[in-house]
């Protein structure tokens, strides 16, 4: 096996990594949403250390991809905006973890 073909084979798992999820802030958001049913912006801000505007920007991208649902609801007269991972989002996050594990397994020493 030539060096270039060996390198091509080891790069394939890297190409499967979802770049939308792989961004550090979005990865943090998705990981925190994965372990709960749903949460609001304040919770996400406290858990991730990201700013509110930062979270909004990343959430828009995740919502456009169908990974996150943004739910606006009222408790009495007070409005709340909650976020939750969709089934597609959970599946994508599981695939991302599996792909990343595969990458590390196949990396040459």
């Amino acid at each position, binding site marked *: 096996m030539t060096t270039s073909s060996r390198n091509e084979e080891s790069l394939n798992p890297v190409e499967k990594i979802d770049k939308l999820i792989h961004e550090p802030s979005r990865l943090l958001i998705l990981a925190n949403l994965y372990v*709960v049913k749903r949460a609001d912006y304040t*919770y996400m801000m406290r858990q991730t250390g990201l700013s509110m505007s930062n979270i909004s920007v990343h959430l828009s991208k995740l919502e456009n991809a169908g990974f996150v649902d943004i739910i606006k609801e009222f408790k009495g007269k007070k409005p709340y905006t909650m976020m939750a991972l969709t089934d597609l989002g959970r599946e994508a996050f599981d695939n991302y973890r599996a792909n*990343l594990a595969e990458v590390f397994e196949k990396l040459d020493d």
Partner: protein
Amino acid sequence: MSENISLKKLEKRAFKTYHDDGTWEAGVGLFMVYMALYERLFGTVEPEAIRYLLLGFGVSLLLYAPFWALKKYFVTPRLGRVEFSETRKKRSKKAIVIVVIAVTLTFIPLIATILIKNSLVDWEGYRYPHAAIEIGAGIFIALVMTLIAYFQDFDRLYVYGVLMGMTMTTTWIIEDTYPFAIAGGIIFATGTFFFISFFRKYGRSVDEVADDHI
């Protein structure tokens, strides 16, 4: 990078955040101190109903109320709203079941006292050595608190459970409530320390920190 993110630890950390403000402990500690001193303060007040219901139960609730309000109106808005997973909810339900069973078991001797004379708490004609009940009660309390601590992932409750168990045993043996006051003081002080830590970390309202950049 994601290899080092333990989702289990992440979830546990998130859930623990909701216990780390110290308000529950401060409230319970103060309640214990009050109950320890209550007989000394109001032991001669008549009728008994006023003494037990109003000055005992009623004042205890009033003492705990500020901590409940602190949790609801100061702590929770700063931590944010979250609905934990079904797995977490099942664990919390198990803790509730333990509390219900423990309270039920505790009420059995109380009901026996009311219905049957010469019952467990009537020392004359008493079948078992006093020490067995005193030590048993302490172990029972420690065990119940330990189980609740496990299902609620509330690490400090392990220590409080042992402390409360020892306190119960000691209180019965020396027939004085000083151990209750000391244990309550320790728990109150710990709760206060954690609340101060919480305040230093999360004291600013959400609006103030909304656009801080990390």
